[in-house]
């Protein structure tokens, strides 16, 4: 059950546990993941899952949301409380609300059925990678919370929505969200436009400098607040700096 043991052990083939009440789907996922280099175990429900988890070397659980008996959410919550392996939730209910609830209860990612098999593969790899890089300087995957707090503000990383200190929600465009994430991950560091572009789009992009200025001014406007001085400051001759977090 020890997560760190599972991670620190030189596991060349990560072990995935699939928990789904549908036998055929279980077998299909299992077959697909096995083809792609994983060792796969399956369980039809919560109790069976506990038995397999007892082995202590499961790296990730793919969990169905809606199951007879103990449902996916409560299993997920249980795993999270016991610092169990990361969870990717599968749901037949594509509702956004379920997605958020699932993530808030501690799922690391979420996919709605029917899903693209290769996307599942990509997400499993991404979650495992995040697990490995845990503790290092990283993105919002650092920790399981999908919420980031700063100066009384709150950023919902799923909905891509800011909540002002007074509780008002402020929507962000995708570009603004990415930009804010770049700043939030590097508080108190002066960033040049080129650096910001690199963080946003990777190196060697031909994005326009001016576009960044527009995005930043918009983001500043949304972050403007009567009490706080500018959260994003302009550093003359260099670029921008996000106010250091306390």
């Amino acid at each position, binding site marked *: 059950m020890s997560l760190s043991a599972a991670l620190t052990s030189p596991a060349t083939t990560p072990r995935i546990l699939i928990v789904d009440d549908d036998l055929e789907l279980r077998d299909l996922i299992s077959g697909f993941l096995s083809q792609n280099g994983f060792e796969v175990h399956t369980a039809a429900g919560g109790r069976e899952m506990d038995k397999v988890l007892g082995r202590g070397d499961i790296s990730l659980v793919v969990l169905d949301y809606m199951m007879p008996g103990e449902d996916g959410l409560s299993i997920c919550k249980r795993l999270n409380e016991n610092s169990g392996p990361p969870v990717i939730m599968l749901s037949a*209910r594509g509702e956004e609300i379920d997605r958020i609830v699932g993530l808030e209860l501690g799922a690391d990612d979420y996919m709605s059925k*029917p899903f693209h098999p290769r996307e599942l593969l990509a997400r499993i790899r991404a979650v495992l990678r995040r697990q490995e890089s845990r503790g290092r300087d990283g993105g919002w995957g650092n920790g399981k919370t999908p919420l980031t707090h700063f100066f009384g503000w709150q950023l919902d990383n799923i909905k891509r929505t800011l909540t002002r200190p007074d509780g008002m*929600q402020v*929507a962000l*465009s995708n570009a*603004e969200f990415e930009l804010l994430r770049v700043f939030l991950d590097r508080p108190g560091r002066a960033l040049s436009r080129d650096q910001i572009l690199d963080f946003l789009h990777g190196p060697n992009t031909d994005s326009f400098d001016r576009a960044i200025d527009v995005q930043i001014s918009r983001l500043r406007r949304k972050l403007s607040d009567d009490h706080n001085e500018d959260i994003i400051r302009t550093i003359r001759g260099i670029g921008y700096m996000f106010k250091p977090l306390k």
Partner: protein
Amino acid sequence: MAKSSANAQPQLISLPIFWQVMGLSLIVLALAVGINTWWVIDAPQPPPLGYRMTEAVDALKTGQAKLQDGRWLRAETTTEAPDYVKNPDRRSRQSAFQTLVAARLASDLGVPADTVWINFRPLHRNAPWRRHEHFAGEPSGGFLGDRTPGDHYAFAGSGAGPGALGGPASGAGPGQPGSAPPDAGQSDSGDGGPPAPPPHDAGAERPPESGFGREHDQALRFMQAEERGRTEILYPAFSAAWKLPNGSYRVINPPRTWIEPWQERLLMGFGLSVLLILPLAWLLSQRLSKPIVAFSEAAARVGFEDHSPPVLAAGPREVRAAADVLNAMQDRIKKQVESRTALMGAIAHDLKTPLARMRLRIEDLPEKTRDKLAEDIAHMDALIRSAMSFTSAHTLRDNLRPLDLSALVESLADDLAVTCKMDPPLIEPRVQVAGDTIALKRIVTNLVENACRYAGTCRMELSTHGKEAQISIVDPGPGLPPDNLETVFEPFYRLESSRNRDTGGSGLGLSVARALAEAQGGTLRLVNRYDADKIIGLEARLTLPRLVK
């Protein structure tokens, strides 16, 4: 005391409407009857009608005289003789009495008897002549409605009778006056004394002319004797004409008013009842209608898919029963909606698992076939998703949060510009609503996608109108036939008859958008944009109640 009455009120108001109306009617009836009964019984003696001889004389001489009942008797002078002077009705049974009174009047006036005429008017058309005379001093007033004309005539006749039998025309026997008073007294004192001779036959068949002079004289004498001993006689109202030496007539007529004094009294009784009953009836009726009004207002708030409070079961029993029925109905509808949502969820779940299996199964197929099948699966998935959001839209209502609509529209304009060519948005800053970010994004995304699909481009606008915020998606496209502006919101309605996936989505897009808008207390509608009579585009208007601090 106040407490007990406060407790008694709801009990009273909770009686069935039947008993409340019944009680109200009975109270009103009892009050009306009671008030009028008291009013009539309590009424003072009405002043006697009619007038004394002296009053008639005063009126004829001076032009007017005040009567006992407060009215004025007025005299007029005419050149034309009244009807009863021209055509004296000598056959009438009253003629003898008339003659008698005329003689008395003439003597009081001090003029010859043949210059004065008298006419008694009947009180109303169908009533027989009624004897009205009585002595003013008598408390009863002698309103002798039960007397027949015969009785009256008997009085006149009995006075005249002995004279007619015993004396010559001119002779007024000295003994006659002596015999007359007892007769008259008998007749006037009441019903007790039988009229001496059989009155009817004698009076009716004797030619009136035959004993005219004698009757006249004797009656006159009797009257004069009366006057000496008793208070003045009150005569029933009569008309009189006095021929003046110059040939014109001086005429008095009984004062006629629209409402007689005694009628006045009765009408006042009615008025009093109305005044007393009206506020009471108004008060009680209002109390009766109040719970019904409250009920209808509560019933109007009953929404099928929202969590409106149950209608309060209060008031009369019938209203409480109706409220219970309504609440039960609302409950059933709510349950039905819930079970519909649950059913949709179950169907979706059971469809999506096989779809997920299919998606995994096709991985091994050749790429071309696999991609086509993947597309089909994606389409089915989208359809199921829309259907689910449509049925579960109402659950949104519980999750509304304050949000900055301006920021939302701006970010959407930004994001959607990648997939759809759009003009720069016109956004009013700092517009705030209570809503759901994801739902609002879905609505606007759907509207913008529609506009881009049919018009190629569009512009987003955010404005406020009073208490409402309005997001408009304005496009320069072909618009819609006016008949279709509403029908496009029906589930699975398509403008094109084909369910072609290339031109349309699931057919649920607008239905879902409207359901989501309504779940946030908003509205969504489409209007054509006109330039004169020509349609120059379509505008989708999403309104939401503003959040005002």
